[in-house]
């Protein structure tokens, strides 16, 4: 497959920018439009764009591991964030726990943020697994 040199060069710079943007979207999620799902999709788009420009193998090399392993990782973060109120305060499952003092940049940190981070990883894992599977068998 031939790709233009412009796309190739651009994708190298776009990858970190898109990843940063996805984290930005993830973090603003609780107060403004955004969140784990959208952030995860943007992050996976970054990798997919990279794979379009440089080939699947190179993208897999920078990922270091099979994206499928992000799924159980993200699931456990989400699950534990939901479980935290049950285990710590005997409140119902998934009750939002919030810190009293706001942290710089992030605002108040709550269990919802960790849930979103989990969702982020699951979405990246699932999307990349699907796209890689489809493009490998094509």
């Amino acid at each position, binding site marked *: 497959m031939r790709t233009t040199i412009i796309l190739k060069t651009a994708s190298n710079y776009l990858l970190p920018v898109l990843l940063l943007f996805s984290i930005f979207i993830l973090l603003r999620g609780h107060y403004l439009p955004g969140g784990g799902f959208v952030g995860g999709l943007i992050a996976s788009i970054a990798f997919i764009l990279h794979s379009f420009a440089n080939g699947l193998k190179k993208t897999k090399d920078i990922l270091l591991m099979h994206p*499928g*392993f992000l*799924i*159980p990782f993200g*699931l*456990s973060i989400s*699950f534990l964030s939901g*479980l935290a*109120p*049950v285990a710590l305060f*005997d*409140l*119902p*499952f*998934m*009750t*939002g726990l919030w810190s009293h003092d706001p942290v710089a940049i992030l605002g108040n940190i709550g269990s919802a943020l960790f849930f979103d981070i989990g969702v982020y990883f699951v979405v990246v894992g699932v999307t990349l697994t699907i796209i890689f599977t489809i493009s490998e068998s094509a």
Partner: protein
Amino acid sequence: MTQQIILYPLFLQIAIGVILLFAWYRIGFQKIFSIFGSILSVGLAGWLFYYIWTSGTQTIQAGNWEAPFGITFVADTLSATLVLLTAISGLAVSVFSAGSVLRDRLRFGYFPIFHFLLLGLNGAFLTGDIFNLYVWFEIIIISSFVLITIGGEKAQLEGAVKYFTLNILASMIFLTAIAVLYGLTGSLNMADLAGKIAEIENRGLVEITGILFLIGFGIKAGVFPLYFWLPASYHTPPFAVSAIFGGLLTKVGVYALLRVFTLIFVGDPFLDKILMVIAILTLVSGGIGALVQNNIRKVFSYLIICHIGYMIAGLGMFTEVAIAGAVFYLIHDIIVKTNLFMLSGVVYRLKGTNSMRDLGGIYAKWPRISLLLFIPLFSLVGIPPLSGFWPKINLIKAGFSGGSYITVGAIIFASFITLVIIAKLWAEVFWKDGKELPFRKNFGYFSKMKTYKRLQFLAPVALLSIISLYIGFGAEHIQELSARIADELMNNQGYIDTVLNLKK
């Protein structure tokens, strides 16, 4: 802390699923851990059941949002019973999968997905929110898609395409129904909906919504004009997968019908009439379909459809006795149908085929195994005192006292046709003189297996057979249980008050 016990079965299944995902490549560990986790989940479900039995319906608001605004989880006796049955069938199938599913298939995440399927089932039984029910249904069907396609043989993929399309269609209709229901009432909590639907003036619109739910759940349950995906797909996947599908997946549809039509769309004569007609046609067509099949798994697939009719008939008659009969049949059917598909797996390993024409002579060669397999087969027929007999008494009694003689006729017809089919199956598979079948190389014949491997095939069948026997011989306990469930379902004010916290 005690309130949270409702969610423990869900927590356990998520935890097992996630841990198994981490151990993706370690098949040996997955087998042991899955069985161990399933034993634990039986314990938990038993605890939940005991708790609900002694202290009545319990509810918990996820995220601590008051009902009807948040997602409510409710455990009444019906939910707790079904969670317990799911755990028991799950344990049996987990052991059976460890023995029977090929390693090539286990490599693709069979066990984690299996536990996510059980998670979806438990969630569907425990939720009190109609949209949340949709989400659990999706978890169930996505897991079941993966399980049905694992292996990727030709017949399997073709069956999967049919299964997939019809189930997606059912989900879409269910979603449409939820949309209309939300538009009508502005609520999604089932207990809240019960009150709000009763106040709506435009009964025609309510009936249409009810019919949309009926179609959506009907496809999943496999009722008369909507069942064609079922016999086209249930005989294709590995035996363990058909066992869990046959035992539980159609029953989720029945559970949803029971819940929705005893809580939200109550006492609508038009809907009840439709349910009755569907039930009669399901009983007759499923039975006749099973008569002409040759593959024993296809026979059982059609028998699933036929016997769904009993439960729908009980729901359609809508008296306390009839609902008790339907619930009793549900309890009996989950155990027996799971067992029957595992039985077909055992037969397949004994002779290397599932075709009734080629089978035969099993009784002469393996008399003790045949006697074990006799129990689920004839429990299904319901020869007294085995378990299938008792719920039919309730149903027939309700039919006579309600004057619906055609339904009684259909129930009796279906019972006889089941008897004929099972008798034919017994004669063909077990009694007939066996043919010499061509010996298949590389096939894991039962006679070549080691003892522990044989145990993995026979122990789950034995476990479920013992439970079947208990349902048959201890029928007064199950009768008491189903009477209590029927009472809770028919007098739904208790459920509503508990969920909306009206009972001070």
